[in-house]
């Protein structure tokens, strides 16, 4: 049974150990997208996508504290944020604490999910407390 939260195929660490998101740059039109997919570019239809790594830093566009979730394995409450990445795409992810529009955030990789040894990607504002097991 995998943790209902983490999508470990979507991220990893860069050369300095910092979290990175696995994105795609279209070889034909240069559009940068996330997550990576093998099918073709939404902007131009080209099937030539080049893997790239996106910095896991950005600005919170919106936040919501989730109080009810249908999957009993997911403990509530938790916070979901829309983040405009510094590298372009607008994405959604888990925030380790509470957040509000305009906050600068940086992702960190944290243990503490349902699967031992699996690091989950969570965004955090510089002042927000470390999650279980501490920050990466």
């Amino acid at each position: 049974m995998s943790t209902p939260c983490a999508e470990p195929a979507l991220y990893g660490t860069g050369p300095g150990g910092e979290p990175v998101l696995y994105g795609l740059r279209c070889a034909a039109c240069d559009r940068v997208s996330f997550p990576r997919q093998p099918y073709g570019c939404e902007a131009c239809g080209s099937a030539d996508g080049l893997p790239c790594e996106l910095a896991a830093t950005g600005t919170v566009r919106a936040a919501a504290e989730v109080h009810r979730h249908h999957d009993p394995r997911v403990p509530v409450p938790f916070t979901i944020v829309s983040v405009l990445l510094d590298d372009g795409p607008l994405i959604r992810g888990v925030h380790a604490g509470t957040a509000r529009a305009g906050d600068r955030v940086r992702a960190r990789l944290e243990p503490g999910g349902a699967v031992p040894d699996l690091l989950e990607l969570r965004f955090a504002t510089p002042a927000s407390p470390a999650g279980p097991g501490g920050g990466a």
Partner: protein
Amino acid sequence: MMRGTLADLRPVYVAGIGLHPYRRLSETPYVRLGLTAVRSALADAGLAWTDVDSAWTGTAGLGMAASRRMLRHLGATGIPMTQVENASASGSSAFRQACLEVAAGLADVSLALGVDKPSRVRAAPTGVAGLADRLVVPATHFALLADEYMDRHGVTAEQVAAVAVKNHRNGSRNPFAQRRKERTLQEVMDEPAVSGTLTRLQCCPIGEGAAAALVVSGEAVERLGLDPARCVGVTASAQRSERLYGTADPDTELTRETAGEAFRQAGITAADLDVVEVHDAFSIEELLYAEAIGLCGAGEAAGLLARGAFDVGGRCAVSPSGGLLAMGHPIGPTGVGQIAEITRQLRGEAGDRQQPGARTGLAHMLGVGAVCVIHVLQRLD
């Protein structure tokens, strides 16, 4: 892009409407729900089943082959029958198919039916998931949009919740609505929070039900002796799918584009609208789409709502049926149910939720993915 429009073809009308009340899941088979709506629509139009040339059934959760296994009990006439699945817009797309078939001259009378029972519907698996897709259920998606809207326009959570107050008031006057209880702002706000500032009553109920509309040509009105005063014209049918809109909300931008196309077909503007039914599955959506359709400028909907502009009796009645929030969102029926409400309003038969003098109405649905379907209906006398 589409090369022609409904306006290029012969005129089409809604001649009959019928519903099975929307309600929580029961033991009643879908066949009973659907037949109730169809028989009611036939009686409303003064048509016999043998007058119907084709049938389109909007459904997302029933499984394969829903139409004929139900409609044979009206008499196995051999007409073409097709299921239409377009997520939440399934019923709207079924209605569009019926309109296009009649407008093209392939049929004189076509049935658009929506019928569904709650089931574990899932979107087709693409093998591609975002970071938090398993955590971001629809309520959370719209809670994020609500947060962004409130932040951008200085709107409060109470002003967003006021959509639910209005729509529950409308739903309390609709005998087919799943939620028929008026709610105060306090009651809406005191409900448990689901996600962000959205409380339970700001999220639509998904139940069972059915809705039917009979689409006819002008020739059918004459040939079959229908009452022209109770026939409402369908003057636009627009359907689009999402493009890329940068970091703007795709559903809002898609709605803006699709509404623009519908207005061009009908030769009207948003200012002509008297009644509008929108995809208000969550309270924030009504504010976003009222603005995208052009009922007002960006950030103005909350203030206008507070001043009664979108009430029955206001400048333009929005969701007079109660909308998805109070009438309910059984998926397949929802889009056809909107057509039934607009038809009732334009006929002047909506009783104590009647928008005075209503002549022009618009029905708007979105389906996840995303697709958008908009129809404009008008009194043509």
